[in-house]
């Protein structure tokens, strides 16, 4: 369930300091989220796709992720053009397909996928522990970093526990159906998971206190900014600048 198919060593992009990758990806996401013109969004997709090609992620996993991300976009494609009103370009039974609706759905689809490409290329290959420590170096609150590290650590443990409870229930003849009994059984199992988690947290905290935990983690990951990190960031900033310029002055580029 919680596998990490993007974790493999690939050349170049993975050797860029994760802090720089996080900052670039975030800047890119914020800029693209603000874009309102189609040409700029198209340019955003082109740059993002180029990054994705550079990162060479696992193609099967990438397609699967993109499919999940686009479920909401498909929902918008189905609803927005038919309900938005305005100029209609075609009629589908009682509905009119609106030009503005198509434009809006297309814009959103391009922006969403461009941001997804950038994140799959730059952030998804970072392990959670390196991510957490990078965030700490980027002045993220220490308590949030703590929560992130430990929540991630225990997801797998709790998932195992849930599976064990579910298997046990199935062995005793539990078949989920749409009825109150099913919800009651599932809720009791969830309650059990929460009670166990609560007890586990007390044990883990005591164990950490015994080992002298003082609220600070020391990372063995070395963060060192090199020339290539700055070159990469500069190139990304130039690409981002061109997208923003194209968004602000769309007419100037039509020749």
């Amino acid at each position, binding site marked *: 369930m919680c596998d990490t198919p993007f974790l493999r060593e690939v050349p170049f992009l993975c050797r860029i300091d994760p802090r720089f990758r996080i900052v670039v990806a975030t800047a890119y996401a914020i800029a693209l989220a603000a874009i309102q013109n189609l040409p700029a969004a198209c340019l955003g997709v082109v740059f993002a796709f180029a990054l994705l090609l550079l990162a060479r992620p696992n193609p099967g996993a990438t397609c699967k992720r993109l499919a999940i991300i*686009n479920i*909401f976009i498909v929902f918008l494609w189905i609803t927005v053009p038919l309900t938005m009103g305005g100029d209609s370009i075609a009629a589908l039974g009682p509905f009119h397909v609106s030009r503005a609706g198509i434009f809006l759905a297309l814009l959103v689809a391009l922006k969403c996928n461009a941001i997804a490409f950038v994140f799959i290329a730059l952030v998804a290959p970072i392990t*959670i522990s390196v991510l957490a420590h990078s965030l700490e170096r980027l002045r993220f609150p220490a308590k949030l970093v703590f*929560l992130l590290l430990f929540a991630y*650590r225990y997801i797998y443990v709790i998932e195992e526990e*849930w599976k064990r409870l579910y298997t046990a229930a199935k062995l005793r003849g539990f078949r989920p159906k749409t009825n109150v009994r099913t919800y009651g059984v599932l809720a009791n199992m969830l309650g059990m998971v929460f009670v166990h988690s609560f007890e586990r947290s007390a044990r883990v905290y005591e164990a950490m206190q015994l080992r002298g935990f003082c609220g600070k983690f020391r990372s063995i990951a070395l963060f060192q900014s090199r020339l290539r990190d700055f070159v990469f960031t500069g190139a990304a900033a130039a690409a981002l600048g061109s997208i923003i310029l194209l968004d602000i002055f769309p007419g100037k580029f039509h020749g």
Partner: protein
Amino acid sequence: MHISEGVLAPAVLGGEAVLAAVGIAVGLRRLDYSRLMTVAILSAAFFVGSLVHVPVGPGSAHLILNGFLGIILGWAAFPAIFVALLLQGVLFQFGGITVLGVNTFNMAFPAVACCFIFRPLLSRGGNSMRIGAFCCGALSVAGAGFLTAAALAVSNGGFTRSAQMLFLAHIPVMAIEGMITMFAAAFIARVKPEVFLFSR
């Protein structure tokens, strides 16, 4: 449902991100390191619980459990939900960085509000507790659905109808979440009532 990136207007994204940051700051300020571990592990339990699918008629829906987390954690639900969503974003690319603030606030705010509104009922025990827990579960999902739909509708007039449909889709989930929260809270009240003392 998670809103994808690139859908909402920058003003909505920014405004809700600020609100979420305030909620997270309040939540973290009230936590010391001795209680942080509990929030971290319950955040992981929330993450796993929200991947559980329950049958609804011919299909299935995944649980949200924000109301349940709100009952247990109070204000700390803000950082817990933020972390779970951040992990979902990095591990599955559900949601994403620009909508993290929006999704955090939309889920955590109704949960925290319900926790405080229904606390008198919840602490009374028995059937009052069950009713309070049902309301927390159902209304937290309703609030999350409403805030998400509102964010969509405010961003662009063209999304209004889609936003209405999105909210209507939350209604069956509301009833189920209410029941699950009620049964789960009753279970915890029987088995380990001190869990509910965490946020007091």
